[in-house]
């Protein structure tokens, strides 16, 4: 989007506006779908609109929102991070292990450990990707195996028990602030901060520039390697934070925590309008995508459709949204081209 501005100085404001309207239209569309599902399900069963039920939905979506935020930053640069599930798992386990050995430790330390573990994982992946120029799909796939393998070695047969986790820490998982569960509030706050940054800060806008055209970004003076590295560190840190929240929610964990999350997270981003080849998509969209996937899951249970339909519908939803996106982007390209030629005529 930034690139378009620079390339077409004649109509910068208009171009920007079209791009913004499009991304906002996507977010509004998902909100509408979420509301429709919510209302339809409530009509069927009034319990669905209960506060506890809504809180439950927020709690279920929270981890995926966090991971989707990090994934959006990475996807925006035309990279991908498949290691988020493993990183979440190792962070949750190490924090749990820390509590087992230091029962009276403070919560702040737990957060620092979790985020730190994630940041280390992310920076190793980011380092390999930027230095060796190996495609991130392969590096993060290898990291998925290696991190999970390390987790299996240190956590073989160990189950972190709820008794080892301090109650004050578990409270993050079930206590609420003004009716909103803390565990949901944290990802939402992160999403708002990152969304603002990705809209307004130069360094974050550069993520989109890199994704739109890596070599053009390089020529325009964007420190590509540093930005991509940062995106991976952010993604890893958020996965680490996800691990901390995982532990506070379930109060128990083992070596399998977070297995298979990576593809669901990417699916959330894709549904939320993040382009898989980089350059566009917002954090808010990705977060809404994660919420949508969760609400479908929960709605099915309530309207007595077998929950087995859950992933079949989710898959269909992914296919429909990306097809629809394609249609929209074709239209938008056409509109931009028409506008561009109009500007030249003037």
């Amino acid at each position, binding site marked *: 989007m930034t690139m378009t501005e620079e390339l077409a100085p004649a109509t910068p404001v208009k171009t920007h506006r079209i791009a913004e309207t499009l991304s906002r239209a996507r977010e509004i569309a998902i909100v509408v779908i979420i509301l429709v599902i919510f209302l339809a399900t409530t009509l069927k069963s009034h319990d669905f609109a209960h506060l506890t039920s809504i809180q439950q939905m927020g709690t279920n979506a929270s981890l995926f929102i966090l991971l989707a935020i990090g994934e959006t930053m990475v996807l925006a640069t035309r990279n991908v991070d498949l290691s988020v599930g493993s990183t979440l798992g190792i962070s949750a386990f190490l924090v749990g292990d820390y509590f087992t050995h230091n029962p009276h430790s403070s919560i702040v330390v737990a957060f620092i450990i979790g985020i730190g573990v994630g940041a280390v994982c992310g920076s190793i992946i980011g380092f*390999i990707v930027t230095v060796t120029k190996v495609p991130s*799909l392969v590096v993060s796939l*290898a990291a998925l195996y290696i991190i999970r393998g390390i987790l299996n070695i240190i956590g073989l047969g160990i189950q972190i028990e709820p008794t080892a986790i301090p109650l004050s820490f578990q409270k993050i998982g079930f206590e609420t602030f003004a009716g909103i569960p803390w565990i949901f509030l944290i990802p939402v706050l992160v999403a708002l901060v990152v969304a603002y940054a990705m809209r307004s800060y130069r360094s974050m806008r550069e993520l989109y520039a890199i994704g739109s055209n890596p070599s053009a970004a390089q020529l325009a003076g964007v420190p590509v390697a540093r930005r991509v590295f940062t995106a991976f560190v952010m993604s890893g840190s958020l996965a680490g934070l996800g691990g901390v929240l995982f532990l506070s929610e379930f109060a128990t964990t083992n070596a399998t925590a977070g297995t298979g999350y990576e593809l669901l997270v990417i699916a959330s981003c894709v549904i939320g309008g993040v382009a898989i080849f980089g350059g566009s998509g917002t954090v808010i969209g990705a977060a809404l995508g994660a919420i949508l996937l969760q609400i479908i899951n929960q709605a099915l249970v309530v309207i007595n459709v077998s929950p*087995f339909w859950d992933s079949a519908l989710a898959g269909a939803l992914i*296919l429909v949204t990306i*097809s629809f996106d394609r249609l929209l982007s074709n239209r938008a390209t056409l509109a931009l081209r028409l506008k561009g030629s109009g500007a030249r005529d003037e």
Partner: protein
Amino acid sequence: MVLVTNSSPPEAPEETLGSLESVGGRFDARSLLRWESALVLFLIFDLFYGGFTATDFFSQNTIFFAGINFGLIAIMALPEMLIITTGEIDLSVAAMLGLSCATFGYLFEHHVEVFLAMLLTLGVGAVGGALNGFLITRIGLPSIAVTIGTLTMFRGLAEVILGTNEVTGFGGPWTDIGTNTIPGTPFAWAFGIFLVLALLYGVVLHFTSVGRSIFAIGLQEEAAFFSGIRVKRIKFNLYLISGIVCAFVGLLYTYQTNTARYDAGTGLELNVVAIVLFGGVSIFGGRGSMLGVVLSVVAVGIFDQVLTIKNVSSQEQSIVFGILLLASVILPNTGRGYRLVRRRFARESSATALSSSVDA
């Protein structure tokens, strides 16, 4: 992740140079050969390591179980290799295995004649593959997004069909294929099927015009299109074949385990992709050889078996697998990077030599 898109050629300058070199032919063949010899070395290391440290390593059981455990991944790796060579990817392979398993289990449970049930299952595979192919080639969507979608959907449909039921008791003459060796050899049927298919795929890929087209698409899709290659049709057919082959693997899985469950083979898709990449196939497309994939399958399959014999749990094996995968992409890349730097340096020094001689 610069998987080749419909609209944009590879961007990174290094990468463009890399593909130019490989068009030249000779350079590419040499570097490929080097990777394959590395795989052979790894295989020899495997055999020595296994032979010295594990008792009865060279017994028939080892070979049989290696074939059983690894054969299914190996067979799915073949169509995946062709798809990756065109610069696309198929992440729905293991979900198709599950869907096929569930379909077959359902039909069997409802007393459909076995042979007919098999045909219908393969039909489901064809439909699934065609759906992938249609969305990717006709609608023009990125394959990674499409196949994540169909992955979720296929697995979901499998769940809808079979629920948490487990169908067992298949029996019949087909059980042999799952649990016995090919008569007269120590090989599992799955491994034999893999070898036959690999030979077939290898001949098509390396000795026919279709195969050359597949490489051409992977190197430069637009150039391939303008030179008259039916890019969309070839890609569509590859996805179709992938669907059918994976459905077939689903049948094999059913007969190996004598159970049909919806979650059969969950998560194998990443193993399949990893084994292909370990065989030296470039994720950008356009580079790779069937021999590399076969060597990668055999080497990793045996290594896997060695570790299993030595009581390394399969979870811990994943760390070894990850490191191998990482090494397989970083080592050739650093080699190429080194040569690039050296060449650039040589060019610069010759340029300065030229300018200094002009000055003189």
